């Protein structure tokens, strides 16, 4: 770091606790003016919390914030804004029913709003930074990429000198991500400082100047010069000294096809096509990985197989049974297990206790007449808890107190119990600590050796390359390529994820 260049932001020894979690435990960050600064770390490393502290959303329990050398004390996002700090959150903070222009001027407008004049202003600003967008359109009609442009416009309109982007590329296609990179470079040239949160190392390599790495809420490496640092070194810093990685499972011959999908078409929540004419087979004893930028139909695909989303055409066959229009229960009876992406919202009932959650898929068999058989319930639950090493308090306590890893063990354990033939696992290791990731991955591999057909949907390419027997890439609802994880080149997979079919 060049000591003569002034610092835009300095965060010193920030602590932030939430009930049950310490999100920041002495994190530090120094951002040089006019640079793009990457903040790296695994899920749960405390990146978002630290940024929310800087943006005035959270009050730190301890620590100091300095902006341009001045100590600051933010009570609210408004304070941070007036200090010139703007943040683009991972979940967009937009009012869907408002127009682009209304969203941009929200909080800054003159007392009286003149629609045409704010639309002109916003249009000009967008043009100036090469962000193409129609200021008069309501936000609910926009794509994710367009919405992000609105978010960036908001900070530009406020003339924010320090811009925080929280995993901005998670919802973008690689092409959109490149365009974002160009925009950010433009903005840095005008003297703005950009904090770029990511766990995608190639992006950091491509357009960041410096990088700070967080792990377990602490800063483990501060302001590394990106061009002098190897990607492998950054990865090592993120994961820690001894990352427990699962070895590639031993190859085995696959058996019968247990999950067959053909000609599947599915609409998303906005009634737009999410999956288009998709066909695939998963055989007994293999793990088929699905890679892709999030939002390319993976979520809808998993939901449709589980019976939670209706499809407009196509068939789904599980273990030889045509279950295209079957209820989730009947699919479960046919041997389907499902690990949903949204664990607490879909997979578990947060207000109920461990026993009640453990029996969720099997309570129909634990009855005595209309009553639930309490002793059988407890036995059933204890069995899952023991076999899958779920660490819980009293079983009759609500699961809300369990850690993320234990919640996932409970959920996965429950899905693996019973007569399992096919498992659909969506982001099964997301947000877990290293140990938790390993435990879940080992369970998947074990099921594979038992002959279960596993469809693994993940955003973590390394996980897919390690675990999969075959790797499919989804783009805009279609499968754009099949790869052999042993031999495939990352570059080719990346190209397929971007929609460029490898020839």
């Amino acid at each position, binding site marked *: 770091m060049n000591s003569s260049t002034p610092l835009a932001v300095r965060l010193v020894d920030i602590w932030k*606790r939430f*009930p049950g979690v310490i999100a920041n435990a002495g994190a530090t960050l120094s951002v040089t003016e006019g640079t793009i600064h990457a903040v790296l770390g695994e899920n749960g490393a405390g990146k978002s919390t630290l940024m929310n502290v800087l943006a005035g959303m959270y009050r730190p329990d301890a620590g100091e914030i300095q902006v341009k050398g001045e100590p600051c004390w933010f009570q609210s996002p408004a304070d941070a804004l007036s200090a010139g700090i703007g943040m683009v959150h991972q979940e967009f903070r937009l009012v869907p029913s408002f127009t682009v222009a209304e969203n941009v001027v929200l909080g800054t407008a003159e007392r009286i709003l003149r629609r045409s004049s704010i639309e002109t202003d916003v249009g000009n600003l967008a043009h100036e930074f090469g962000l193409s967008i129609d200021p008069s359109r309501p936000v609910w009609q926009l794509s994710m990429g367009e919405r992000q442009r609105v978010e960036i416009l908001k900070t530009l309109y406020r003339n924010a000198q320090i811009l925080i982007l929280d995993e901005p590329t998670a919802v973008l296609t690689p092409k959109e991500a490149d365009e974002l990179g160009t925009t950010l470079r433009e903005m840095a040239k005008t003297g703005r400082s950009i904090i770029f949160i990511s766990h995608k190392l190639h992006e950091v390599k491509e357009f960041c100047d410096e990088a700070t790495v967080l792990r377990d809420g602490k800063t483990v490496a501060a302001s590394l010069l990106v061009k002098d640092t190897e990607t492998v070194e950054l990865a090592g810093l993120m994961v820690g000294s001894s990352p427990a990685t699962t070895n590639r499972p031993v190859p085995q011959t696959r058996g019968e096809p247990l999950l067959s999908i053909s000609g599947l078409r599915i609409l998303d929540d906005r009634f737009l096509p999410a999956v288009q004419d998709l066909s695939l087979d998963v055989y007994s004893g293999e793990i088929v990985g699905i890679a892709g930028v999030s939002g390319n139909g993976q979520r809808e695909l998993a939901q449709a197989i589980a019976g939670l989303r209706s499809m407009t055409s196509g068939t789904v066959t599980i273990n030889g049974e045509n279950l295209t229009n079957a209820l989730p229960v009947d699919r479960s009876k046919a041997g389907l297990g499902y690990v949903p992406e949204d664990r*607490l*919202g879909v997979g578990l009932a947060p*207000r109920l206790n461990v026993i009640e959650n453990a029996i969720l898929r099997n309570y*129909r068999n634990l009855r005595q007449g209309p*009553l639930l058989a309490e002793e059988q319930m407890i036995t059933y639950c204890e069995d899952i808890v023991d076999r899958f090493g779920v660490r819980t308090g009293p079983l009759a306590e609500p699961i809300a107190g369990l850690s993320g890893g234990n919640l996932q063990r409970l959920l996965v354990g429950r899905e693996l119990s019973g007569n399992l033939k096919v498992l659909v696992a969506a982001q099964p290791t997301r947000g877990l600590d290293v140990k938790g990731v390993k435990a879940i991955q080992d369970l998947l591999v074990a099921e594979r050796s038992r002959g279960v057909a596993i469809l693994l949907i993940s955003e973590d390419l390394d996980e897919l390359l390690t675990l999969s027997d075959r790797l499919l890439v989804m783009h805009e609802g279609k499968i754009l390529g099949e790869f052999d994880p042993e031999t495939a080149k990352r570059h080719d997979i990346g190209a397929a994820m971007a929609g460029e079919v490898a020839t």
Partner: protein
Amino acid sequence: MGRLILVRREKILRGGQPLAFLIGLTIAMTIGILLLAISGHDPFAVYERMVEASVGSPKAWSITLNRAVPLGLAGLAVAVAGSMGLWNIGAEGQILAGAIMAAWVARIGEGWPSPILITVMLLAAVAGGALLGLGPAVARAQIGVNEIITTLMLNEVALRLLQWLIHGPWKDPESRGFPLAPILPEEARLPGLFQRAHWGAIIALLVIALFGLVASKTAWGYELRVAGSSGATALYAGISLKKKILTVLVLSGGIAGLAGGIELSGNSDRIVEGISAGYGFAGIIVAALALLRPSGVAAVALLFGAVQVGGLSIQTMGVSSSVSTILQALILFGAIGAGVFSRYSIKRVSKEKMDVK
């Protein structure tokens, strides 16, 4: 100078809710004392009379018990819907619908043996309330129409229906022009229990206990709790949300309807406009204070019954019976306020210094 902010406690205070309830009660009583004193009454004499009239003798208890019956059933109705995160604000109208149906049975069932007549009346009351709950239930389950508003609107519709009946088709020809329905036959009256108390108390208690049992012990109740915890999880477990919404809102309406039937058969000599003295709305407060638990509903209903009976008794002292209405609302506000502090603590934040907790 710092600011005060609420910070979520890491663990909910144990026993916080019952404590909150007691604090709420205390706050309400204190404000009541102030109000009474300001308006020139002797607060303690008024309170003494209220206690005397509501629980001071077997007869007082019997009146309180009668009052607690519709409150408890209305509270249970709200709690049943609440167990799935739905709000039935329509208990008031469903009580009226239940009373109307029961009154109709009493009209056509002249000469039936009393046990049969009463049974049919009460079943009809359940059907009446359920019918009023059915519309909002279907609209909510099929189209996602907000049940708060539909049930609220139907209260007014049911009230108008009742008014129309007693001003028109059901007007007693012998009432000399007054809009009064004819007096119920003796066979249509619920038998007595002790003093003024009637069998309604037993029925209400049975219904409340039965629902409590069903909710906690049966597979159906389990499904209900899963659905109440997370709708998506219920779908995933193969529980039909639509069916659950439908059954729960209809059941809720039926329970409120039963309250109307019991009120007519047990407490009123004829169907009148004011047959529900705001029981439906009070039921919402009862359910909220009971945290939607059936056992809590019974207890809070008894307390509110006592407060209401006490309120009626102080009119002879020249004090407005509205004191009891005020107390009921204040108990809830006090309890909500106190309840917040079992989940949150107050922390002062200052600019100068940050303290590590």
